């Protein structure tokens, strides 16, 4: 069951690569939050109940509901247009993300490790590189933020892989998640929408050396 959920997670990455509207991104982020909830529930068998409840609450309330709702609110409030405005065509994005997944699978197969469930490693690394690719290939600042949130999800998957032995690392991951998301989303995007007329990376090029 865990494998099924994680494979759906990978498919969601491919789906995002050809998505044309920002709303789709928000929905996929929300879906990923729900998937992580399921994976956490199935995976973390050996940890204390209250800790498990905390992690489950974080995935379902924070990742799956609060952040997507807040993103939707920001998009409305800052009047962000609905196109994702990639620098590359969708087809090429799809190819690149497929390549990322294939390469991580090949990399994972070269690992001789009995301690690690390989699928966690594959999913987390693919998500990490996909997030980085999104940050590099999309124009709007809000898509950068979503790329970052996707990276966070990937890191969370990896922390689940070691969660049974070291539950504190999962808690650290949650701390990072909440802290960074609140910092990035709450303070700056609000202000950026007010100060910059178009929420575009091209606006962020005034700090120069000469």
């Amino acid at each position, binding site marked *: 069951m865990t494998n099924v959920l994680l494979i759906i997670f990978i498919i969601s990455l491919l789906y995002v690569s050809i998505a044309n509207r920002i709303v789709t991104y928000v929905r996929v982020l929300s879906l990923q939050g729900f998937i992580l909830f399921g994976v956490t529930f199935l995976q973390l068998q050996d940890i204390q109940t209250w800790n498990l409840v905390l992690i489950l609450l974080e995935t379902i309330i924070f990742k799956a509901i609060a952040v997507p709702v807040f993103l939707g609110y920001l998009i409305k409030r800052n009047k962000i247009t609905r196109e994702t405005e990639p620098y590359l065509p969708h087809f090429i994005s799809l190819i690149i993300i497929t390549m990322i997944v294939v390469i991580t699978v090949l990399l994972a197969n070269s*690992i001789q*490790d009995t*301690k*690690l469930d390989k699928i966690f490693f594959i999913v987390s690394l693919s998500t*990490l590189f996909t997030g980085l690719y999104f*940050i590099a290939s999309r124009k709007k*600042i809000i898509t*950068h933020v979503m790329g*970052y949130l996707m*990276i*966070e999800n990937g*890191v969370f998957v*990896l*922390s689940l*892989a*070691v969660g049974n*032995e*070291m539950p*504190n*690392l999962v808690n*650290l*991951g949650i*701390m*990072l998640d909440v*802290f*960074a998301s609140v*910092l*990035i989303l709450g303070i*700056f995007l609000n*202000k*950026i929408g007010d*100060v*910059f007329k178009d929420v575009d990376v091209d*606006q*962020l090029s*005034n*700090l120069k*050396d*000469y």
Partner: protein
Amino acid sequence: MTAIYFIAAFVIAGLLFANRNEKVNYILVILFGLLQTGFTLFACYSYKNTALEYFTFDSLGLLLLITLSIITLPALFHSYLYIKRHNETPQSRAIYFAAMVLLIASITMAYLANHIAVIWIFTELTTLSASMLIYHHRNKLALEGTWKYVFICAISITFVFIGILFLSLSLQHAGSSDLSFSNLMTYRDQLNPFWLRLAFLFIFTGFTAKLGLVPMYTAGIDAKDKAPAPAGALLASVLMNLGFVGIFRFYAIVANTSLFHWANLIIFIAASLSIFVATVYMTKVTNIKRMFAYSGIEHMGIVMLGLAAGGVGYYAAILHIVLHAFVKSGLFFQFNQLYRTFQSKSILHVGNYFKYNPAGAIVLLLGFISATAMPPSGLFVSEFLIFRSLFEGNHIILLVVVLLLLTIVIWAFGKNILKMLFLPVAGIDETKIPKISPWESVTQYALMFTAIWLGLNPPTVFVELIKDAIKILPN
């Protein structure tokens, strides 16, 4: 005492944030200065002890903590001058000082942390407090700088976290789950090399955002440019040292495993690229603050070269990072007087500074001599030792390339600084130039001379501390 310091610092930051009265604000700031000094003295007396389980007063932490506390006092003083002259609203003053106190306290705790996750937590806190300082002016450019800083630091901190996860996988092979540095050192031979390699890559990359090396150096430049100069002084000196602490403590473990040469190669690549990047930008830059920031990147590259070359380079690297902190913070403290004289950040609009503020001009000249490591500066000693370690390690080609790049840096830096000091610029209205009291430069003189003294005639205690800090590295 550590718990008292920690709680008191956070309480002071909270009170500063909530309070709007000017007098109370400055009383709290003075209190924090006393607290920081007191805690540093306490740290000296409890050398080698452990507090609260996660904090150890070891040599490296103590050395950098003393550096931080020496820089903190002028930083608070210059912040006071800065806020007083800028007619700040009570709210922005409150946020500024609260953020500064939080930043200094987080850096202090991160220096002393003996557990990789604890360093990570406090590094995250420095991102938060530094971003509040960068956003101080609340205009479009400050927002842009803040946004870039926060975003890149968030990604870097995530990278460090991924590195910690890989490290835990590596440690599971040794049958342990405690990520403190001493425990990692104990199990160093049983760590799984594959995961350790990945862990080192990610942790190193993540900490370069704070240290100011390629690949993540970019955010720091914008941050030092947009933050008020007294805060920029902290970002350009003690915060960079925090990145060094994070990398150094982990490197010490990796260096004692079979990955020693591989890790050195990674550091060599990042360090030489940093020096190259800094050189390229130094020749082009016209913004004074950014020029200082790029100079910092070049110095961090030199420090990491020393660390990777080994031998006498270990000693020189730590000496260099301490001296660089004094010199660079001194230059940033000087910047505000320069700005008040010419009302411009651009080198093109600044000139003949000796005529308007001789005391400050001598600071700039001293800072230039120190930052380019010419004798009598203390950095000459450390840089010379680093070059010697490169020579002894048979990295001749790298040494030649670095020396060439540094020559270009000296040319670019000298061209700009000497123009600012001696060449008159057209169109300056001399009636508008304010008289600047030479007393404001006293703290910078103290910092510059400290750097010279520590380099040329280091006290025995100082040398012993450095030697003890590098004991864990293989020779």
